[in-house]
């Protein structure tokens, strides 16, 4: 009796946790879908809620932010992961990993403050696309580093030994053998980190700010989907609120399709390999 009750309670917890997920998806699709039209996706935000207004500049802004952030963050994260996995079996490696893990858990608004300190205070750029990209890149680096490290460590040692035995220099072994074999794990990590930074709001509020114009300049403030939602969510104007829901729909479609796509196409190909953080791996036997 107690047995069944406990099992039922555990199952109820799972169901209860899935209610918000389903409800959010349902509500965003239902409320956001009427807003979607070609004009909505391609026109810029004027901010008055008039006819023909859209979120085109926000979509462009988000794409640019993610693009530049990936340009900065991906190589650095990749290199860090390579170092920790291939050369990091020593004190420096542990230190790098430790501080990277701490960085991964910084509150995102604090990362916004850090990027503000760098770009706005030290480099005197002001609120800008560049500042926003730096903030997102700082969020991206530890994620990519962690997943790269995990993926590379799952490449069997026999491959390393084989390549080295054939006289291949170590750096070529890393680039041509290990990285190529750990490819799908690395790509998974990169894509998941892109999904994560696409939805980040707080750091952008502090760095990229917002603009209702078309802008692709690195030194100017830029619009983004998350900030479009934040600016309009409380608006008394029905049209502006509708804009927020439309932007939410576009945003959630991007984020979830990356997550689900990675799951379906990349993780299955790697069989039972798990690239998401495994605590046993991350935290055990490290000293």
């Amino acid at each position, binding site marked *: 009796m107690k047995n069944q009750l406990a099992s039922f309670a555990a199952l109820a917890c799972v169901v209860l946790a899935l209610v918000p997920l389903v409800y959010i998806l349902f509500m965003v699709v239902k409320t956001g879908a009427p807003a979607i039209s070609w004009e909505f996706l391609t026109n810029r935000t004027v901010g008055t809620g008039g006819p023909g207004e859209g979120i085109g500049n926000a979509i462009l802004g988000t794409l640019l932010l993610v693009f530049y952030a990936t340009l900065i963050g991906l190589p650095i994260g990749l290199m860090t992961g390579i170092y920790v996995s291939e050369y990091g079996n020593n004190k420096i490696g542990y230190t790098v990993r430790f501080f990277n893990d701490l960085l991964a858990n910084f509150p995102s608004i604090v990362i916004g403050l850090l990027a503000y300190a760098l770009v706005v205070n030290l480099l005197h750029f002001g609120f800008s696309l560049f500042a926003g990209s730096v903030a997102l890149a700082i969020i991206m680096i530890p994620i990519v580093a962690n997943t790269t490290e995990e993926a590379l460590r799952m490449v069997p040692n026999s491959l390393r030994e084989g390549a080295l035995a054939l006289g291949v220099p170590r750096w070529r072994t890393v680039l041509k053998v290990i990285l190529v074999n750990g490819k799908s794990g690395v790509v998974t990590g990169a894509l998941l980190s892109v999904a994560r930074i696409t939805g980040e709001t707080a750091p952008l509020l502090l760095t990229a700010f917002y603009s209702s114009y078309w802008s692709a300049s690195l030194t100017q403030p830029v619009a983004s989907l998350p900030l479009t939602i934040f600016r309009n969510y409380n608006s008394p104007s029905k049209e502006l609120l509708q804009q927020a829901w439309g932007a939410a729909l576009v945003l959630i479609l991007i984020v979830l399709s990356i997550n689900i796509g990675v799951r379906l196409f990349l993780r299955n190909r790697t069989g039972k390999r798990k690239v998401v953080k495994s605590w*046993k791996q991350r935290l055990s036997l490290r000293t």
Partner: protein
Amino acid sequence: MRAPRSRLTFSGRTSTADRLFEYGVLAIALSTLILVWGLVLEMTIDAQPAIYRFGPGFLVGAQWNPNTEMFGALPFIFGTLLTSGIAILIGVPLSIGIAVYLSELAPPWVREPLSFVVELLAAVPSVIYGLWGMYALRPFIAHSVEPFFISFLGWTPLFQGNATGLDKFTAGVILAIMIIPTVASVSKETMRAVPDSQREAALSLGATRYETTRIAVLSYARSGIFGACILGLGRALGETMAVTMTIGNANRISWSMLDPGQTMSSLIANNWGEAQGIQLSALIEIGLVLFIVALVVNLFARLMVGRFMKAVPMTGGGL
């Protein structure tokens, strides 16, 4: 089984290209870390004016008034702790239930997809949680949950006020939902790490499945589960957008969960655009306080989970 980490060492000569590659990769890895921690220092410098002006009193100052230029952090520290506390109270039991189901009860073919779906909760952007919280959760809480609290618990100082739904309670509920994926998946990992010999011992003594889970799994993994909860706490403390959109934004201390409030992060988000001079500096100091709190909480969580994982024999798993 995972391959063990590379233990290849090179006693022989390595070529210049090899050394260049290794040091190049290391330089990039180190330089970002140094940059980031240097920026923490720069943040401290930006906060100097406020630190000098208000001293340690900043932490206990109850006012936030741009007109008189009096700034104190207490209402926001209070708001952060209260909302995170609500999140832990609601989120942790749910997460442990989920972890028990996924680790002990679920049939193998359900386990993986269901874990993925629970983790999708973490993929939903925080600003969308806020939007949903404002238009779905808030009316529900204001009409169905809070009137109930007021009529049964209204005599306590914790539940006084009106059922508006734009308050610390709603923010806490949203935070609870947002920490579930973190707490549940780390707890699940620690429960999966409990050696099967523990379960078998309990079962062979005639324990039921419920008793086995309680005695052999939960108590064995408790420090790991505790670490998972602290990790969830770390996430709740720093969460910004969803809280900013639902907490009602009032810069004062009030014990009632039905009153609007403000957290450290929501204060920064709300005032960033117009803050200048000493107010900007005070906001950055708030960010610094938040940073230190989150750092300490995370270090502690890592310590707990790490210690548990180290204690588990690596080979003690499957039969």
